[in-house]
Each structure stands twice: as C-alpha cells, then as structure tokens.
C-alpha cells in the first residue's frame, strides 16, 4: 500500500551523549521517546533501536576504548526512511573500514559465539552504510526503511 504523502515535511532529531554505556542506554530511551521515533510503525521502530544501539555500543567499546568523548546522533525522517548520521572523536576503524559482520558458525553448542553479532545486525537491517574518517572524527551514516514488511 502506498500512503499518500501530503507534504515532504522533514522531521529531525539530534542528540549528543557522552560515549559510555549508561549514556547510550539513556540516550536511546530519550531518542525513542521523541515524536519523530514514536511516529514510526512498530517494525521500523524496533529496527531503528537495534541498529542505533549496535552502532553506539560499538563506538563506546572500540572508538572510546582508550579515551573519553562524545557521540553525536542526527536522525532525519524522510517519507519512508530514517536517515541516520553518527559521529565521534574516538579511534578510527581498523584499516579505515567497517567490519564485515559475518556470523560465526553456530555449532557445536560448546563453541557458540558470544559476540560478533553487532555488525551483522547493522548490515542486515540498514542500507547505504557508509563510514568515513574526517578531521579526527568517525562519520557513520546509513538509512533505515521505516515501512518494511518482515525484515
């Protein structure tokens, strides 16, 4: 079904949080309480929460592993997509590239992976994933479909 779009109004939200786990948790709570994200269908909202959480956790865990800093998150809702831009002043990605996010084998049970899911989730749920390093900042951007059916 194609929903009529009355006006190309653009809604946006921006938050700046400290690069630590508790701030990420509280920042996500605050973001998902905004009118912008409350307006998304449930499936789009849950996708956005998964991808944003993984991207932010990754920054806290790796980019800010050796020093403190802030994370800036900008979201724009354009018709049926959420355009997300995240920047930080942490360490660059190793080799200047995003991890491939390939899932490890799920057997045998004793060897099940306990990590490495994050980039797989981000890559599975986002589009136009892009990473750049500019002037000492990591710039991550991607788009999320807010009207998806299934995955």
């Amino acid at each position, binding site marked *: 079904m194609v929903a009529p779009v009355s006006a190309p109004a653009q809604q946006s939200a921006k938050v700046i949080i400290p690069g630590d786990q508790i701030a*990420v948790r509280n920042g996500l709570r605050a973001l998902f309480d905004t009118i912008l994200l409350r307006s998304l269908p449930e499936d789009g909202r849950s996708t956005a929460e*998964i991808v944003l959480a993984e991207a932010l956790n990754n920054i*806290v865990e790796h980019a800010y592993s050796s020093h403190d800093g802030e994370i800036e998150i900008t979201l724009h809702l354009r018709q049926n997509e959420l355009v997300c831009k995240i920047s930080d002043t942490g360490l660059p990605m190793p080799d200047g590239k995003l991890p491939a996010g390939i*899932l490890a084998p*799920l057997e045998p049970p004793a060897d099940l992976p306990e990590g490495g*899911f994050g980039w797989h*989730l981000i890559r599975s749920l986002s589009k136009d994933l892009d990473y750049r390093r500019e002037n000492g900042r990591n710039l991550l951007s991607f788009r999320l479909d807010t009207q998806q059916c299934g995955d």
Partner: protein
Amino acid sequence: MELVAEQRGEILVVRAMDDRIDAAGAIQFKDQMRELTLAACPRVVLDMSRVAFLDSSGLGAVVAVMKALGPDRKLELASLTTTVQKVFRLTRMDSVFTIHDQVPEDLRQAD
C-alpha cells in the same frame, strides 16, 4: 538488573524484570544468572516477557549463560517480545535455543 527465580518441580523459571538486557547490564545479568543457577536444576526457563529490548551484548550474555549451564542442563527461553525475537532471528540464535511462546503452564503441575 532484577531477576526473580522460582523453582517449579525440576524447572527453574527465571523472570527478567527489567525492560532491557543491553551492553550496560549484560555482565550483571550473566553474573546473577550464574548465581541463580548454582542449584541443581536440569531445566532453566528464562521468561523474557518484560524485556522489550536486547542488544548484541545482551544476546552474548544469554548465550554465555547457556554455555555455563554445561552440556547436561538446558536454558530455554519464553515470551520473547517483537524486538527480541528479531535479534534472535537475524543472528539465527532462534535455531539454537528452545523458545516457548509462554512459560509452559504444565510445569506448574510437575510437582
């Protein structure tokens, strides 16, 4: 992280009372689950009905709890919410765990 454990016959039902198992709470979740499952209980069912959100660290913690139970004890999951289900499906962990729609009622009659 608040976890409430109840022994029902040979099954230990643990209900996660918080609305998220995330990077900030994953280690605590893992440690508390380890403590709660020290007693001999062949089956552990984690009731996730209140957990609206689980990230990859939370998922890793659930996997770690299962592995810590060893080969002879099982960790089963119950009442996954929409977002949690999505994380399990996308990481194919839904093929690893026994997942119940609800905490099985017949467990109550077991003893």
